[in-house]
């Protein structure tokens, strides 16, 4: 199963800071390098928050978790974080292994995520 990656710079005032990455398919040993490659420019830039939308993700292995883990670390160093939304139950179980790491946030719905991001964006603006 291939992996489909859609990167979307969010609309709104803080456009450059929150990026949504929609993943569909299988994030595994064969496809993880491609995600890593596509995330590289974001991590090299000033992006602080990345939201991974996993609604269509069917399979994930430790190779995929590893990409999330390095992304999380880079973002955390610049005071940002990696958020995950719409996690399917089977993905959630695998994800348990890194869920409690700092700089990781999991949301059930977009509404929940939006409320949280709004608060974060305000605090970013104040800090800047």
């Amino acid at each position: 199963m291939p992996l489909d990656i859609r990167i979307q710079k969010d609309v709104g005032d803080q456009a450059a800071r929150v990026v949504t990455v929609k993943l569909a398919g299988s994030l595994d040993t064969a496809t993880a390098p491609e995600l890593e490659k596509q995330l590289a420019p974001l991590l090299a830039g000033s992006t602080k928050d990345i939201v991974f939308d996993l609604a269509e993700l069917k399979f994930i292995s430790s190779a995929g978790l590893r990409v999330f883990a390095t992304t999380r670390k880079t973002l955390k160093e610049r005071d940002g974080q990696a958020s995950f939304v719409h996690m399917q139950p089977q993905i959630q179980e695998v994800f348990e292994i890194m869920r409690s790491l700092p700089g990781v946030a999991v949301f059930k719905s977009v509404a929940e995520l939006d409320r949280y991001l709004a608060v974060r964006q305000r605090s970013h603006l104040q800090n800047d």
Partner: protein
Amino acid sequence: MKSLSDCRVLLVDDAKPNLDILVEGLKGDHKLSVAMNGETALQIAARTPPDLVLLDIVMPGMDGYEVCRRLRRMPETADVPIMFLSSLEEVQNKTRGFEAGANDYLTKPFEMLEVKARVRSLLKAKAYSDAVKEQIATELRVAREIQMGMLPHDFTPFEEAYGVSFGAALEPAREVGGDLYGVCAAAPDRLVMFVGDVSGKGIPASMFMVRAISLARLLARESAEPERILARLNDELSAENPSGMFVTFLCAVFEPTSRRLMLANAGHCRPVLLSADEPPRWAVKNLGTALGFETGLEFERTDLTLRPGDTLILYSDGVSEAFNPQEECYGNDRLLAGVGGLANESAAAITASLLGNVRAFANSAPQSDDLAILVVQVNGGSRLTLTLPATPEDVMRGVEALQAFATAQHVPEKAIFGLALALEECASNIVNHALKRDAGKTFQVAFERTRDSFIVELRDDGPEFDPTGISPSPSKTADDDEPGGWGIALARRNTDEIHYRRDVSRNTLRLTKRLVPASGDE
């Protein structure tokens, strides 16, 4: 036949005047090589093998007798005519010359006319024997082609019609041999297989073999039971058998619908039965009497019910009685031990392994007997083996194959996800670390659905590596981004048992996930 003027004569003498006379006398008739001592003569003979050697006896260094003995030991000159030309005229000297391997002896001084006459005579005799040998070799080659043509080569029609798969090998010790095997589609639900070994080797054995195989094919269609086939075959072969030859014979009849296997033995090596999770065992106990001695014999029958994936190994004593250079016999113990780990392999792989084992054991010892192997395997409805190149893409091909296979086996979706994840993690480990993503290397995955569990087996020939030794450490310090151990932790979490084994040069990792018994799907 080579013309006499194309024949090369090697002249060996330490006295130049003698050589000059010979060269002068023979140069118009033949090609010549010349040596003035024994060592040089041997070197020339090895480089440009002559058709005839004229050899002096008394020479400084190596004498003519020794040169003659050494020429006989060299493959290039083992059959070349050798004539001594010597001033030694005692009968003891001549006798010694013939004992060293010479074909003729002429005393000096000689008449050139006589030398020329004898040279022509020896060369003609050699050319005639060469021509006869070549003709025999040609006929043997054709005989071998005919004989090999009698054996089944394409097993596909049998495999498709009867739900089995085959592996086979036949290696005669000479050009033609007395070992045989055969497969016969006797009826829609009756597949007859046999393997035999005619006493003796070479042409007589091969002719008897052809007679046995032709009769066996006919009789397999007429009788439903293997013991009847053997009894009738024995009557036919014994009735007119003036040369007193005999054949050991093992006959197997398989009925795919019920998976019943009937076996009858006429003095042949006992076949081996391979089942998953069981040590290899003999499929029949009794040996029985070989065919061809006397009419009216009866044979015993053994009935077995095979399971999907079971394998029957038929072979001849070229396997069990192969010898190594120390003259030790391969033997039944090595045979059983050698196929012990192969229950999950394909029929072709089992054949290749067994043949490889025997060859490795025999080392460089010449093959002492004909060797035949016929392996038949009941298709495993619940087992699948794949050999994959060591790339991440092929890991995922394996994962997808597992998903398709487990779905077809009615494994619950949640269990499939866990198994797929465990396979991905373990296979990635092998590919990335043991095999270093070398696409030229391969690893194997096998899936098996048993009554109450699903088993995934991974095999690779990489360096010894036991992933079960890694402690799962998801609770590393909070900011640690080195997620080592995540893979094996996930594999553990999604299976019930992980077992690692190292055999000689091979890693085997066996993952087991328990399932509710297969009666009802979840």
